[in-house]
């Protein structure tokens, strides 16, 4: 198979994203990562929930499952468990992943399936034209919060660290090379890999711009120990500066490893027959 370019992973469908949306750059980085890894589009699955970022699967030529709001992760887990040879990547936004679908993030971290989860965080609900999201700054007033915001924002990377997500990184959509490399490593990571991407919305959240983000971000030190969860948490604690890079990496058994292990145990339990069919299952009911 000849090496592919990022463009060769794009579909004919024109994105509905606004001009200058950060998600274009995430799409570029993701397809570049796919090219680097020489993934076969037909062997790759993107799952998504609902939102601007969740439209991304339509813009690639891989298989895709665009589900309902918040459910990208359970769909990805089912896809991967039933079809373990495929590369499975979930994509979505901050509202989809941390609000309506927040619960699934905890349990995906517990299961540790071998999938990658890319969140494009613009700190706003943009498809519905600008309402506060779980990552919105406390000062952001919108039409549904016209006076003041009563909720605190969450910290996605710190949250992932507390759930012991097995790979955690943060990138900025403008820093293509770093983001591409991060996504490559996330896909290669055997386990649940979370990539938090700062991806500004230029229409509905004017407080989070390319420039403002550029000023907020700072790279993790080159000698950051990605096996040290406590140190990683210290870097993750601050909103200003926002540290960028790979925070944490823990190679442990994946969901697939565990399911295969219990399969072995289930067969040990009946003395490892050379063949076991539905007829054998029926015998216990005779």
């Amino acid at each position, binding site marked *: 198979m000849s090496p592919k370019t990022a463009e060769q992973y794009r579909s004919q469908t024109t994105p509905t994203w606004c001009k200058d949306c950060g998600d274009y750059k995430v799409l570029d980085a993701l397809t570049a990562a796919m090219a680097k890894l020489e993934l076969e589009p037909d*062997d790759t699955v993107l799952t998504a929930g609902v939102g601007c970022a969740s439209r991304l699967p339509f813009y690639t030529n891989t298989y895709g499952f665009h*589900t309902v709001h918040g459910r990208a992760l359970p769909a990805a887990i089912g896809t991967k468990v039933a079809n373990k040879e495929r590369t499975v990547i979930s994509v979505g936004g901050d509202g989809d992943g941390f609000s309506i679908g927040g619960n699934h993030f905890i349990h995906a971290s517990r299961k540790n399936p071998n999938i990658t989860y890319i969140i494009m965080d613009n700190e706003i609900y943009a498809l519905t034209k600008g309402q506060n999201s779980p990552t919105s700054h406390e000062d952001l007033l919108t039409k549904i919060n016209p006076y003041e915001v009563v909720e605190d924002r969450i910290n996605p990377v710190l949250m992932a660290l507390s759930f012991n997500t097995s790979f955690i990184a943060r990138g900025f959509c403008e820093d293509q090379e770093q983001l591409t490399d991060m996504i490559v490593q996330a896909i290669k990571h055997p386990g649940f890999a979370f990539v938090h991407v700062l991806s500004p919305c230029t229409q509905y959240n004017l407080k989070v711009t390319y420039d403002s983000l550029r000023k907020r971000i700072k790279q993790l030190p080159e000698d950051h120990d990605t096996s040290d969860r406590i140190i990683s948490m210290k870097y993750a604690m601050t909103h200003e500066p926002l540290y960028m890079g790979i925070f944490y990496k823990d190679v442990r058994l994946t969901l697939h490893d565990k399911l295969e292990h219990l399969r072995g145990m289930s067969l040990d339990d009946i003395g490892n027959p050379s063949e*076991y069919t539905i007829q054998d299952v029926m015998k216990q009911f005779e």
Partner: protein
Amino acid sequence: MAELVIRIVGSPGDGVISSGDILTLAAARSGRYVSTYRSFPTEIRGVDQSLYQLRISSKKILTSADEVNVLIAYNERFLRDNISGLKKGGIIIFDSSENDNRFEEYKKFTKYFVPIKKLAEEFATERTKNMVALGVLLGLTPNFSINEQIKSDIRKKYETKEEEVIEANIQAFEKAYTWVRQNLEKEAFLEKLVIEPSGKKFVMSGCEAMALGALVAGCRFYSGYPITPATEIMELLAKEMPRLNGNVIQCEDEIASITAALGASFSGAKAMTATSGPGLSLMSEAIGLASMAELPIVIIDVQRGGPSTGLPTKTEQSDLNLAIYGTHGDTPKIVLAPINVEDSFYQTIKAFNYAEKYQVPVIILSDVSLGERRECIDYFDVKDIEVSNRLKPGKLCGKKAFSRYTQTYTGISPITCPGEKGGAYIATGLEHTESSAPSSKPHVHAAMTEKRFKKLETAQSEFISARKYGDDEAKFGIISWGSTSGPVLEAIDLADKQGYKIQALYPRIIYPFPTKWINDFLYNKEILLIVERNYCGQLANTLVYRCTCLNKDIKIHNLMKYNGEPFTTNEVFSKIDQIIKGQYLKFMVHQ
């Protein structure tokens, strides 16, 4: 037809359910038909009674019977609570270890006062008193000859326990049997009772039947969230699925469960989830996703009393509206309602066949009384069972993007799964074009909605008509659904003995609504009785709305039950009797 109906009642901890299960298995393995009814308190250690009713017969049976021949009671309160269910001339076996009441007021019965608990302590340990009770019962019915099966089923039931415990239980049973033969006066009916065995059978609960049906149909992915009373399905699949190269995963909630199952279906696996009412409510949105993205999936709802948390261990048929109408949008799906355990097995296979063939979600409506009761299924060979698979595309060129939702004559479009070369597409909950690009254009939504519903039309043309029972000439018709059909059919037999000619229709396919079958059935009927276990008459409302316009003169009666218990045959018969005697003497056909 020879048969014996036994009811065992006691407190949680008396081992009522275990002994009932063992007796059921042993009777079935010996070739007799069995049907059971179990009821136990919601709280693990409540004050309510545990009840196990078991009907053993030489012929196929539809219910676990209204009245019993033998009542085994561990305490006075439960004996008194259940005495009305004992047939005239029936037998009481009472644990007299700590209660010397002789119940002189119960004159019509044969009474055995057996110090069950004391005998258990003497033969083995106090905890084996349920096995002593079984020994007493079988000692009184010597022609049953199932002692060997009982012993092997004790072994199976307690296989996870130490050998000592197993031996104690077997000892208690055997010694009680011998003790009865030597010490108790014989009871003529039981002493002579012969229930002929009739060939090999499978015995299982309704939940197990659905789990097995799924495996036979080729289900290799299950994701679920624990919920009473559906968990038994997941338990069996968790044990067996890995051995068959499938996977079971526990999810964080019902929304994740159904979405994971849809992910697996998208991946090409036959997938299922099971739940009860609260879970089905949570799954509604994703059921719409399955309809829209045209992904096969089977969803089992073992109904319990609702709304909200309701009555987790009590039975009801009140999720029909949710199953048929519960999802937003115009949502093609199929809803099936098995009538007994055997039907639960075969309908689950059908559910997978329909789901895969028509690429729709299929909901199976079972309920507590059906899911938990054990019954026999006639022996069959798995190889003889027909299994359908989804429509695959012809050769894919790979040059042009695969058009997943191509319009066809049947509405069914070929489907691929990840890994298939040239088959990449996006399954989506958004309205989409034939090539799965999102679209909100008026003509696209109209055409694709019609396409999705076209599949139901195709399906309907292939469905075998609903089953009928009774005389085609009858002017009195009864329509019922799900597990209510057992008591209805038995009531028709009772009515026949009274000279009432009645015919029943019991559709197992509830949606697409069987309008045509019902209209055909109603064509010559003058009275219609609709029987179901809910307050609102959920089937009746849909039925009257859709079907009775063809026969405007028909008199419609409802029989609803909504106290958490299943119907008895007598309740249905009483209603028939009341309708006929009250207003319609002309329906007496022969005297």
